[in-house]
């Protein structure tokens, strides 16, 4: 369903959202699309009978049980941003619902777009995958060409029911003065799988995100982040895995290259259930003296049968590698770009096949445009 007509300028800007994985030209197969520009839902469409896509405000009218999901995973009192979302009388955001047993092959795409200068976008999103269903979501978040100042505040609650599999990929392209505060939580039920891929390769003033996954018996979660922070950006990123059930597992892997950027990478895993496993890994690459990368891994074992581990490394580009490439005739800028690209691309392995090429290209562009 087309929810609201777009003005011409917005149409043009939306056509350029391919950069965050939102295909408006029909070049790649999608099972559905959802787009919010500022606080207006401009697209909400599903091509599958087993996939329901609608604005959250509609869903609250259609399904009785949706209201019970709001703030069932994220504490509405958690901070000023969750309180702001909770205070909204008219909810804006997406509702994505996959019916039991449905395995939806083509990715579903959503986009949260800041179109108006200085706009404060406040969203509440709900995603529900019924038992044994599968969905691959690509979410692009971006600001328009004329927008430098803006805020994005969102609460996203995801319910991955028994045996279901949700892959949630988020590609960010915010402006130099955009502030971004997503608050997300995921309930991963028995035997379910949750995979999160986060890609941010451009400027943002400040972003703070630390989603939390609650894992039941035999559930697993993986958080994979690729960040190229630059030009005065500030990233405070992380993930938490609470291993409640037996044989639950969680992995948090981050790769960050930082150029004139402050990055904090948090990773918290708590092992409560029997035979649970958790691992965090952080690799940081500092590209100048104005950058800093802080890795904060935290492991808490509450059960004698939990195995938790972490590894972290932060360093600069190896002179030996740079010299080696330059000895083949590459200038320093090109050699550095190749090494930055190589460093970030090591994180691609965990991405869905359909996204690898796209992200590879994004990394190539990001690394070659501003490498030195």
């Amino acid at each position, binding site marked *: 369903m087309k929810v609201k007509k777009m003005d011409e300028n917005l149409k043009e800007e939306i056509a350029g959202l391919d950069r965050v994985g939102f295909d408006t030209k029909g070049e790649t197969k999608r099972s559905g699309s959802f787009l919010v520009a500022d606080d207006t839902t401009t697209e909400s469409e599903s091509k599958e009978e087993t996939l329901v896509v609608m604005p959250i405000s509609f869903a609250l009218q259609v399904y009785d049980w949706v209201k019970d999901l709001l703030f069932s995973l994220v504490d509405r009192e958690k901070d000023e941003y969750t309180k702001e979302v909770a205070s909204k009388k008219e909810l804006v955001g997406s509702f994505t619902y996959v019916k039991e047993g449905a395995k939806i092959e083509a990715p579903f795409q959503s986009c949260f777009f800041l179109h108006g200068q200085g706009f404060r976008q406040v969203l509440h999103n709900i995603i529900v995958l019924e038992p044994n269903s599968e969905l691959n979501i690509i979410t692009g978040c971006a600001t328009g060409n004329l927008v430098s100042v803006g805020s994005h505040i969102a609460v996203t609650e995801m319910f991955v029911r028994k045996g279901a599999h949700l892959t949630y990929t988020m590609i960010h392209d915010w402006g130099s003065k955009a502030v971004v505060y997503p608050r997300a939580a995921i309930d991963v039920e028995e035997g379910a799988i949750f995979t999160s891929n986060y890609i941010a390769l451009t400027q943002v003033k400040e972003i703070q995100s630390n989603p939390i996954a609650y894992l039941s018996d035999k559930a697993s979660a993986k958080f994979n982040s690729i960040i190229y922070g630059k030009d005065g950006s500030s990233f405070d990123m992380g993930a938490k895995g609470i291993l409640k059930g037996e044989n639950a597992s969680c992995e948090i892997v981050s790769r960050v290259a930082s150029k004139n950027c402050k990055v904090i990478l948090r990773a918290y895993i708590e092992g409560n259930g029997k035979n649970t496993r958790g691992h965090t890994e952080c690799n940081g690459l500092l590209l100048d003296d104005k950058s800093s990368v802080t890795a904060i891994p935290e492991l808490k074992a509450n059960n004698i049968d939990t195995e938790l581990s972490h590894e972290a490394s932060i360093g600069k580009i*190896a*002179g030996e590698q740079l*010299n080696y*490439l*330059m000895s083949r*005739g*590459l*200038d320093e800028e090109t050699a550095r770009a*190749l090494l930055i690209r190589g460093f970030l691309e090591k994180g691609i392995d965990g991405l869905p096949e359909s996204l690898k090429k796209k992200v590879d290209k994004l990394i190539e562009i990001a690394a070659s445009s501003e490498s030195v």
Partner: protein
Amino acid sequence: MSDSKTKGALLEVKNLTVEVVGKRLLRGIDMIVKEGETHVVFGPNGSGKTTLVNAIMGLPEYKVVEGDILFRGDSILDWSLTERARAGIGLAFQHPPVVEGVSLGVLLKTIVPDEKTSGEIVKKAHMEDYLEREINVGFSGGERKKDELLQLLAQAPQLVMFDEPDSGVDVDSIKLMVGIIRKLLQKNKPIRERKNSGIIVTHSGVILEEIHADKGYVIVNGKLLCSGPPLDIFDQVKNYGFERCIKEAHESEKDG
């Protein structure tokens, strides 16, 4: 800086003294490599052979504290690594580093953008299966050496330096590698048509059985002790080790 040039010389090394982190590793080395010539540098491990080729290549930690290096008659001491490589100096490293995340295919594409040319080079080196692999990650010693030669084929330098090209290479691969080295040095062309020159660093000299060289040197403790026909030097080293060369050098020093 030098004020004299040798006619026909592609490379002139004059009284070259090199330090690494304040430690003097080469002292007063002289050598002239003319167009089309191949020279061989012998010496025991740690004698300064690698320092010589690394200093010519221009690796930043190798500081020239005295002397000069001329390439096609121009001093290159102020040239960067990139400038030297682009001017036509190439080096097959003895221990090339691992470059995680960068595939061999991506590097080749950067050196030789033309796909047809790079495709032919890859075929020549039998490295079609390596293009997707990260450079030197999990490569055996022999694979690394082969990869070095592949990159040199792509770079196509006029002065080609090989640092221990045959060490760690199995018998089956030697033939292929010798073929590539011969190509890089234009050994298949008539002598007067050869423009490319080579410096082969070796501690064993076995490769000389396959690749003919014009002149040999022995470097011990950072000093060039003797030079002459490479096969004669190779025979001496094989039969008497480096001691005879060291002894002869001492005696000639005594004789004044």
